[in-house]
């Protein structure tokens, strides 16, 4: 069971290492979207500070849906997905390995680059740390829920746009509490703990259930 998990995780990271451009595309998309907002709404510090939490999260949602398209489709096209499904080990665990690799490659870089974008929006240092932390616990949900949609739309024409349509409404709780936590951190004397706890709960729930649902979706799509 663990052998397939480790094999897939290692393989996906190795593949990404051989083709680094895909990681950077997502990362730069995130940066570009965030940089465009001040140009559209003005560069006043107050407005930017107020907008930052929402903008960062929406950019993260868009970047992660953009990356979802490749989550299973590459394996689907060259036949390795069938190999994975026919591997004598738990499919949910294999799927979990794939999602984990996907998050490490597309979610984690966003977390690491976010302080830079916090500076763009004149966020105070404390809020930047809060932002990094909530992105760290919130972005796994994006990969987890996104995997279900990616599996359902496997191999469809125009699957990429469809994935966004299916999955963006489901991201709302992450957006609400993720952005809420950053906004609250700018108000002195208010605890962000409730937001963090809710995000954590949502994150854990998605980690428990999503691989299982995604495995079922993959089996349906492979027929």
């Amino acid at each position, binding site marked *: 069971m663990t052998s397939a998990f480790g094999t897939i995780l290692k393989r996906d990271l190795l593949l990404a290492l051989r083709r680094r451009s895909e990681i950077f595309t997502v990362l730069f998309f995130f940066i570009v979207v965030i940089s465009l907002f001040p140009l559209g709404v003005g560069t006043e510090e107050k407005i930017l500070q107020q907008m930052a939490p929402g903008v960062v999260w929406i950019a993260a949602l868009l970047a992660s849906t953009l990356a979802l398209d490749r989550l299973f489709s590459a394996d689907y096209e060259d036949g390795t997905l069938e190999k994975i499904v026919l591997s004598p080990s738990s499919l949910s665990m294999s799927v979990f390995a794939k999602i984990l690799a996907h998050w490490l490659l597309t979610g984690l870089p966003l977390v690491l680059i976010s302080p830079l974008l916090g500076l763009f929006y004149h966020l105070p240092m404390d809020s930047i740390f809060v932002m990094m932390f909530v992105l760290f616990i919130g972005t796994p949900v994006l990969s987890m829920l996104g995997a279900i949609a990616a599996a359902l739309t496997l191999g469809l024409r125009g699957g990429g746009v469809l994935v966004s349509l299916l999955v963006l409404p489901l991201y709302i*709780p992450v957006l609400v*509490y993720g952005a809420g936590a950053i906004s609250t951190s700018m108000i002195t004397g208010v605890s962000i703990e409730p937001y963090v706890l809710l995000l954590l709960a949502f994150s854990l729930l998605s980690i428990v259930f999503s691989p299982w649902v995604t495995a079922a979706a993959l089996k349906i799509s492979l027929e």
Partner: protein
Amino acid sequence: MKINWFKYSAPMSFYPLAGKLIPLFWIAAIMLILGGLYWGFFKTADILNDQKQYYRIIYVHVASAWMAMWLYAVMVFWAMLGLIFNTRLSYMLASATAVTGTVMTIIALATGAIWGKTSWGTYWDWDPKLTTFLILLFVYIGYIALQSAIDDVRRSDKASALLALVGLALVPIIYYAVNCPDPTQCASLHQESSLKRVESNILIGMLVTTLGFWMYSFATTLMRARIIVLERERSTTWVSNLPEISLAETSNSKIEARTETRS
């Protein structure tokens, strides 16, 4: 009722039964909706002053909102039945229900906007309930979009059924997030919907129109399901033996014969 459904789970026996039931549901729907609206408009006139008469949209708004949510549950029920028992008809009913559900959601949103304009002074407000309905609309549309994007009938049935289940699991969480953006306090522009606080007079009107909408949903869902049955079973003999089909076929074959002679 239940036993009937299992007996009629074969599309072949469902089709004529649904055909017989549809007119009955239409009659019931029209009578109940007209009755409910009449009761609501003319029999409950004295409760509020003239300026607040716009509240009467409640009979359409609440009825469609209830149906929009209820139909999602119905859709998930059929989808789940399909996934468990692998019955084709369940999937067909699920997809037929989705369209009516979408229509109900749109009606609820539109009447909500009209009511909002008169009572809050704005067509749209990011009020938790309105927002939830907007998201419900997105979920319905996602379901229909996924279904129509997949050509293979079997895959499209199963995939959209799974999506409906995922939606069902997530909608309460989304509802909570929208309702309580600040976890320490939940606010709402909408009045707390408590049936006890509603005048029993108004409640009667609301319940009757809701029942009417329900009958309407039965009628349209069955009609759509019948069309889906025909579409999917068109190559079977029982479909080509149907009187309405064989009529159409003869006219088709005439056209074919004519084109042959012409060429």
